[in-house]
Structure formats: structure tokens, C-alpha cells
């Protein structure tokens, strides 16, 4: 079942079409990567999903019903990229207060905050003020306040920025465990290696439009260039092979990188080398990284999005 269905969502500002007819579906329990260059419209899209902005056009269905921010936002946890907390307020009180805003009773909120503080080894922080915390500690606190009320939909914008590898792993594990418990996670970032590692499903947004949608594996398949790496025992003293089935596009240590021509299959490459009497040590398909795909798709876009008229 889809927890979120977004169809033809539009939001125009006076100088920009921030979000220009974006649609996607989000199945329950998945970890969803929302990718895009700076200024692509990700934040605007997220703000519409969290009920901060009203869309100009289009529809959002939350658990199959039209999204009603007033009630539904208590089921959403949002950690914005530009995050913040009340600097002069005590950490424990603040976490409880933010949970109460999401509809928890004071006792329940206090109990849950304590649980999370124990889990993250933050018990001794309770009476400290936010201004006394380091950036990373603040980040952990922010994460706790985002997921405390067990939201059905969790939106994390660059959740790992400013965290050391140990704390990054801590948060990553929590993200997995929340997804296992049934929460759906929207994960917005520029860090492609994290997306490959964590996400099931991605969409790529550029200039306010969706330009890519699919599972991580599916997207990689879609953008593969039929490149294979073939390891040969005597790769170095083999003359460049001339074959109908493929062309050699590069070498790397003991391997040749070959591109299969249209109409041929990987077995044709193998039989070519077998027929030549070469000993094959390895054979792997080279799939593009998300980073490559991202750059290829977004390349050509001016670094800063140009202002454009919105009369459309």
C-alpha cells in the first residue's frame, strides 16, 4: 500500500516554477531518496508534503485520503536541512515540548524522550542548554525530536551532515530499524554513496521537474552502458582484440574494459576470448554509480538556476 501519492504537484513562486508538475508514489516501509542539485525544488516539494506550503495545483494523498495537514502532520516527522532548536532552552524540556506539539501527552513524551536519550547515551544532557552542545550533539538531539512520536512518514533532509562516522552509523541503524517497524522514510541528500547504500527507491528532481524515478538497481540497469570488465591472465601482452561483438574501451591492471556492441550478449565476449585460448580470471558487469548518473543527467544545467517567468 502506498503511504503517499503525489500527483502533478505544482508550486510557482513569483520568480520561479519551484515545483513543476511532479508525481510519484511512495510505498509503506520503503526508504526513498529524493535527489537533485541545489535549487532543484526539493525543499519546496518537502514543504508541501509537510503541510507548510499549499500546492498551487495537484494533489497529495496520505494513506489513500486527501492530505489534511491539520491532522496528518502529527504522523509526519520532518528534519529540515536548515535545522534549529531553542538555544536557551534545556534539552530535555525542549524534546518533550516538541513531542507535545506532535500530540503526545506530557507523560508519554517524557517517557519516550528518556528512552531515546538512553539509547543514544544522552541521559546526562537533560538539563544542559542547546547552546552548550556541539554541532554533532545538536544533530542527534534533532534526530530524536524528529522521530520521537513514531511518525508514519519521516522526512530527513541531509541527516548526516556534521556527524562523525560513529554517529552516522548510529543514525543509519536507527533509520533501518524505523523502516523495519513500518515507518516510511524520505531521505533528501547530495551524498550519492549514502543513497546507494540506504535507499530502495529514488527520484531525481531538476529544475522543478522529475527526471528519474525507480529503484536503485533498476535505475542502474536503465543507465548501464553495456560495459564489462574482463580479467585475463596475460592482459598486458595481448594485442588489442579486434572483434565483432565488442570494442575495448580501456585497460585496468589485469583487466580489459569492453563495451558490447548492439545485438550481442556477454557470452559472445566470453566465447571470443575462449576461442583465442586466453585464460579468463574474472568477468563482471560495470554498472554506473548513482553519482555518474546524477552528473550525467544534471550536467548542462547551469550551476545556479536561472529566474524564469511563471506565466504558463
Amino acid at each position, binding site marked *: 500500500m502506498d503511504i503517499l501519492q503525489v500527483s502533478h504537484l505544482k508550486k510557482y513562486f*513569483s520568480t520561479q516554477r519551484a515545483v513543476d508538475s511532479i508525481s510519484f508514489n511512495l510505498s509503506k516501509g520503503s526508504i526513498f531518496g529524493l535527489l537533485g542539485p541545489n535549487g532543484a525544488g526539493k525543499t519546496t516539494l518537502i*514543504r508541501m508534503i*509537510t*503541510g*507548510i506550503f499549499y500546492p498551487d495545483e495537484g494533489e497529495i494523498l496520505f494513506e489513500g485520503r486527501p492530505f489534511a*495537514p*491539520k491532522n496528518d*502532520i*502529527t504522523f*509526519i516527522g*520532518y*528534519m*529540515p536541512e*536548515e*535545522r*534549529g*532548536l*531553542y*538555544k536557551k532552552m534545556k534539552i530535555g524540556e525542549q524534546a518533550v515540548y*516538541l513531542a507535545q*506539539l*506532535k500530540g503526545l501527552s506530557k507523560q508519554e513524551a517524557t517517557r519516550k524522550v528518556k528512552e531515546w536519550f538512553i539509547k543514544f547515551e544522552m541521559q546526562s544532557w537533560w538539563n544542559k542548554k542547546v547552546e552548550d552542545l556541539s554541532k554533532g550533539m545538536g544533530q542527534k538531539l*534533532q534526530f530524536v*525530536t524528529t522521530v520521537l512520536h513514531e511518525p508514519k512518514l519521516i522526512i530527513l533532509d541531509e541527516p548526516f551532515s556534521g556527524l562523525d562516522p560513529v554517529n552516522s552509523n548510529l543514525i543509519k541503524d536507527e533509520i533501518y530499524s524505523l523502516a523495519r517497524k513500518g515507518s516510511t522514510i524520505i531521505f533528501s541528500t547530495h551524498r550519492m554513496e549514502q543513497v546507494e547504500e540506504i535507499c530502495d527507491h529514488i527520484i531525481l528532481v531538476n529544475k522543478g521537474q522529475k527526471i528519474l524515478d525507480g529503484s536503485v538497481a533498476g535505475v542502474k540497469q536503465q543507465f548501464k552502458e553495456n560495459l564489462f570488465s574482463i580479467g585475463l591472465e596475460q592482459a598486458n601482452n595481448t594485442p588489442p582484440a579486434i572483434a565483432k561483438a565488442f570494442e575495448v574501451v580501456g585497460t585496468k591492471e589485469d583487466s580489459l574494459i569492453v563495451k558490447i556492441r548492439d545485438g550481442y550478449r556477454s557470452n559472445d565476449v566470453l566465447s571470443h576470448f575462449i576461442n583465442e585460448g586466453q585464460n579468463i580470471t574474472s568477468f563482471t558487469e560495470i554498472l554506473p554509480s548513482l553519482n555518474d548518473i546524477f552528473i550525467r543527467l544534471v550536467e548542462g544545467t547551469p550551476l545556479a538556476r536561472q529566474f524564469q517567468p511563471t506565466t504558463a
Partner: protein
Amino acid sequence: MISTFLLPLAIILFISVSVWISLQGKSQHRIAVIDANGFFKDYLKSDSSIIFNFSSDLDTLNYAEKGNTAVLIIPQLQEGQLTIYRLKYKKQLALEGTSDLEGRIDNAILDHMIYQKTSVSRAKLDSIRRGGKIATLRSYEDQGKIAKASNQGASTAIGYICGTLIYMLTFIYGAAVMRGVMEEKTNRIAEVIVSSVKPFQLMMGKILGIGAVGLTQFLLWVVLLVSLALLAQGLIPHNIMMEVARQQQANAMGMSTGPGVSAAAQKVVEFTGFLNTPNWGLILFCFVFYFLGGYLFYSALFAAIGSAVNEDVQEAQSLMLPVTMPVIFSFFIMTVVMRDPGGQLGVWASIIPFSSPIVMMGRIPFGVPGTVPWWQLGLSMLLLIAGFVFTVWMAGKIYRTGILMYGKKPTWRTMWKWAFKA
């Protein structure tokens, strides 16, 4: 929050220091007088600010050497003819000093002529004037069946205090709202919170929260003042209280001084009279109403400005100007209206919501429905409610967009768009 307690104290301190400085600023002048008439030395008397020197060996060349700051040359005066007398100086007297000197010379001439024509001296005239003070006016506000003792001085003082308090509180708490909104915006907590509550709720929370703090503090001040007054009353000795009672009886019978009443008791009677004249219940009710109304009206505007600007304090100040101007302007109107609380200016300024909280609070102590008819009070209150509903609505629109906008300072045009187009 300590600052809100300290600010009134700071203002009192500021006023007393400036009064003290202005008193210190007066220096003594020593003026040599060359008088062709001969009578001025009998009438121009030296005092703490001017010393007159009538030595015969003074002239316009040597006055400075002999320690005088200026020399005054008075030629022979002719009756019925305008004569010019001159003041020569090395160090200029302040404007105040010259007009003071002019007044003294005019008085000297007058005294001299009265004495010449009637043989009555100034001292004798003054003593007659003092002896003639045997009648005083006591005014009553006509309220149909009952006539209520009124006290112009008390009304003016209370009006000033109420108007000034509203003026100060509007600024103190309005600025607090603006700072709070700016803090939430620059802390970037705003986006976290507006994903839980509506921006309007966040803004109203801020406004109502600070308003409640303000009201609590104000009520604390009232309680403090009342208990201090009661304490002071308890400290007055019993025999004086008896005299006070006698004096009050005498007052009721239309006598100005009761038998065997001391001056201290007279003062107490005067003061309690002052305290009892105004309708405190109505004043307090109106004060709370106009404080809240004016606060909501202006703090919404302050919140809108806080949401529109970035960290930059200067930006905030330049955008604040159009909001602070009407408040300051109302204060000036109030000071003018206090001289004629029933006049046209007062009526209009106390009905229009921009100025009504300050100006109306200045007028109310003069009497409702005497000076301020019920219809004016009602209309003023209704319009103030309508006014703050409008500013809160408009501020909500600006706030909703502004709180999540970073970067360039918005122009008035863009804020107008946020309020009325978006």
C-alpha cells in the same frame, strides 16, 4: 524578563538625571550696571543667578578687568517714550539669561513707577496679595443626582501616567515579540515548528504568550502599589488620622480649614482626596482593555516585521520605523490633548485605532461620561477590536511567507504582496 522590570526604573533614573543636569547648568553672572537714572540700584536685587554691581568707577572699557561678565548701560528713561538700553559682554549670556534680565528690568521700572505715583512699595503689594487668598474654587462633575468632586490636577496626572504607560508597554512588549520572532527565524527552529503547527498558531502563540507576561507584570505592579499605599496609610499616627476625619467633615461643610487641624493632616486629606476622585474601577478596566488592544494591534505588526527581516538588526530598525512612528506620534497627540481633553483632536485621535490606546487612556481619567461620552468609548473600543483583528490577519499572511524566507531584505512591495496577494 528582568529587563522589563528594570526599564521603567531606567526611565525614571533618566528623567531625574536630566532634570539634575539642567539644574546644574545654571552659572552665576556678574553684571556691571551704568545707570543714568539712579533708581535701579534700589530695585535690581542680586541673587544666585545674577549679581548686579553698581560701583561708580565702572565703565564700558574696564568692566571685564573688574570681574564682571557684562556691562548694562541704561540711559535716562523718558516716560511715554521707548528707550533702548544696551548690554555689552565678552562671554554671551544664554537666551534664558537675557530674557531673565529683561524681565527684571521691566519689573524694576514698574515698581519704581508704582512707588512714584502711589507711594505703594512692592513688599506691601505682595503682602496684600497674600492676605487676599481667602477663597478657593472646588469643582464638581455633574452626574445627575450626585455631584462628584473633581480634581483637574489629579485627572491630568493620572491621564499622563496612563497614556505614558500604554506608550511604554506597547514598545517594550512589541519589541519583545519582534525579537522573539527574529530569534525563531534565525535559529531556524521556525521550520521545525511549522511542520507541527500552523505558522499563524506559532505567531499567535508568541503574541499571546508575551501579552500574558505583560499583563501579569502589570497586575503585579498594581498589587505592589496598592499594598504600598495601604502600608503608608497604616504608618500615619492615630492623632493625625483623627484630625484628618475632622478636616473631611469641615470640607463637607464647606469650610477650608477645620478646627485644630494641622498642616500634615491637611496634606493627607488633600492626597486622599486626590486618590478618591477618579473612578479607579473604570480606569483599571479601560487600562487593561486598551493595553491589550493596543498591544495586539501593534505587536502583530512587530511580529510581521520580525518575520520579514534576517539577522541584521539594522534591517529590522529600518522596517520598524513605519510601525514606531504612529506610536510616537500618538504620544505627542496625547500630550496636546491633555490640555483640552474634550476637543476635536482628542475625540478623533481616541477613536482611530492607531492612536486610540494612548490618547483615550489620557482622556478617560477626566471622566466618563462627562469628558468622554459613552458612545465615544464604545466606538473607540469596537474600532480597536476591528483594528487588531485586521493587523493580526495581515501580519499572519506576511509571517507565513516571511518566516521561511532567507536572504534579501524584502521591500514594502513584496510584503504587500505576501499580505494581500499570496
